[in-house]
């Protein structure tokens, strides 16, 4: 039966050229739309994750186990610099930077603002965060920086100070003593993330340690993996390495940036809902086409049954027809989708309403879809699968046919 089915199925498909092309056209349309949308999703999620994590939090952070829920000064890790160095040595990974965090009131001669003071290792901070690279005036901290500070550009504007000016800060240290100091602004950065540009200031970890009476303690060690896929493995090796250290938690970026994950999930949910609607619409169009085609061939099917074909042979024929039709839609849809998506992945893509997202997650104002085998095949394969499922009902109707009655049908 097999080769007769394919030839016969193929010919049957073209009995109603226009009807078949309409259905195939619906498949091509939805398949190319799916290829584009899924590629865009891949591209934008990756960009969102990269850009957000690159800016500040890194892929992984080591913290006191209570720090995530309750970021108090006293939830800290001992000997933070030594621990960071140990990680660098043992993991043979330079992208590790120790940090300490404090809050203070920053004052210039005429204004005061609450800020977050971050103590960093000047040599390594640039390997876990993009901020050192985003200094647009002055310079970043150096190896031996002591009473120097780098602040966000908005903060500098608000305080009405520029590089070279002095800034006074007042906060409380780990032992609840006053933490106060006078530092010189050596640079301002512009991360593009409003919160950071308005609130963040960075000093060297040594200076932070002295001013905030930390005694070598710190709050986090940020780690950046080579790529997003390597994060889970890296996290596991860090955990194995430090399993004896009490009160320590190794946090995945999904824990560090729950908003990012939620945003991605929300976007995925709404996108998949749309895809589902699209797929169901195509499936219904296939159902309609195949049902019509089965009904109008009742007489012919009756003849075939009279000749000795079983309903199962006939339903296989109908499914083979659907298979050919959806293969056509699959191949052409992937081809069209690929061409469109590839073009947009080169020139970029913009849609209205994107700015909000862009600002929130530090995205460029153009999106670049990322084509990969999954984004290319996933949608079209699901459409083809749904189409085949949709042809089951018309195919089962053949089991009800009686040869004589069917042959009398017009």
């Amino acid at each position: 039966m097999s080769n007769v089915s394919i030839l016969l199925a193929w010919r049957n498909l073209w009995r109603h050229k226009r009807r078949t092309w309409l259905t195939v056209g619906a498949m091509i349309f939805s398949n190319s739309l799916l290829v584009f949308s899924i590629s865009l999703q891949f591209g934008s999620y990756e960009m969102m994750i990269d850009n957000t994590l690159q800016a500040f939090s890194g892929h992984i952070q080591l913290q006191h186990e209570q720090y995530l829920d309750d970021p108090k000064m006293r939830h800290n890790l001992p000997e933070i610099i030594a621990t960071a160095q140990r990680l660098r040595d043992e993991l043979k990974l330079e992208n590790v930077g120790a940090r300490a965090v404090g809050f203070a009131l920053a004052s210039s001669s005429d204004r005061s603002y609450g800020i977050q003071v971050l103590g960093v290792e000047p040599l390594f901070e640039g390997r876990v965060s993009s901020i050192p690279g985003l200094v647009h005036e002055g310079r970043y901290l150096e190896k031996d920086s002591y009473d120097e500070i780098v602040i966000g550009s908005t903060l500098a504007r608000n305080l009405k100070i520029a590089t070279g000016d002095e800034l006074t800060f007042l906060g409380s240290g780990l032992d609840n003593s006053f933490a106060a100091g006078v530092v010189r602004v050596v640079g301002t950065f512009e991360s593009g993330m409003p919160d950071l540009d308005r609130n963040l200031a960075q000093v060297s970890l040594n200076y932070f340690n002295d001013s905030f009476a930390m005694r070598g303690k710190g709050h986090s060690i940020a780690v950046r993996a080579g790529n997003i896929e390597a994060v889970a493995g890296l996290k596991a090796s860090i955990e194995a390495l430090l399993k004896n250290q009490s009160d320590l938690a190794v946090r995945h970026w999904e824990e560090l940036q729950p908003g990012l994950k939620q945003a991605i999930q929300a976007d995925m949910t709404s996108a998949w809902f749309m895809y589902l609607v699209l797929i169901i619409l195509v499936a219904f169009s296939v159902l309609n086409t195949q049902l019509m085609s089965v009904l109008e061939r009742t007489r012919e099917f009756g003849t075939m049954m009279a000749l000795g074909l079983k309903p199962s042979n006939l339903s296989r024929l109908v499914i083979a027809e659907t298979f050919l039709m959806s293969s056509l839609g699959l191949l052409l849809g992937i081809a069209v989708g690929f061409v469109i998506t590839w073009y947009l992945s080169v020139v970029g893509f913009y849609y209205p309403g994107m700015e909000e997202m862009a600002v929130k997650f530090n995205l460029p104002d153009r999106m670049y879809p990322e084509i990969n085998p999954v984004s290319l095949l996933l949608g079209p394969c699901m459409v083809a699968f749904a189409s085949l499922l949709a042809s089951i009902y018309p195919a089962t109707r053949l089991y009800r046919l009686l040869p004589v009655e069917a042959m009398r049908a017009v």
Partner: protein
Amino acid sequence: MSSIRCIQLCKTFRQGDEIITGLDHVDIVVDKGEFVCLSGPSGSGKTTLLNAIGGLDTPDSGEIHMDGIRIDMLAKGPLADMRLHNIGFVFQAYNLIPVLTAQENVEFVMQVQGVAAAERAQKARDILKEVGLVGMEDRKPAQLSGGQQQRVAVARAIASQPKLVLADEPTANLDTVASSQLMNLFSELNQHHRVTFIIATHDKRVMAYAKRLIKMEDGKIISDEMQAPILDEN
């Protein structure tokens, strides 16, 4: 051993309030290798009887035995297999598959039977030649005349090497030459390959080939006679 035995077959059709008699207590035995003609006026039940014998329709009552098997009791699947391997049908309305060429229509049943491609192609060509359709192999039914389609239908029925051929008006659209060519082919298959033929016909020329002539009226058999068939002229 008898090949086909019908016992007290009854079949009625309902059309609105009207009840139409298709078959009325038909008893008939056809032995293997017989060449039978069914004749009778339009509506006398010839097609209905052929359909019952071929397992296309189940009678309301009565029994149909074929080589000892009650085919009226068979399930759809085995019945389909029985038709596929044992019976060749020539339908009154040809019923060719419109998207297939003459050659492909003839090959169709063989293909379902699982006959190898080269073999069935050769066989289909030979049979099309025998029914006088050389050069028409690649035409679709719509590109053939009624008589040509009828001959393709005949070719399809005999190509699968059935033991029994049920033919419903196989010469209705044929001229004298074509119909005697066809009947000679049937006689030849009957004599040399012991294929059983049951042919429903109004055509006197066809009846002349039969060894046995059964007349029907109002769903009943009104006469059943043996006769000396005219012989193959070749």
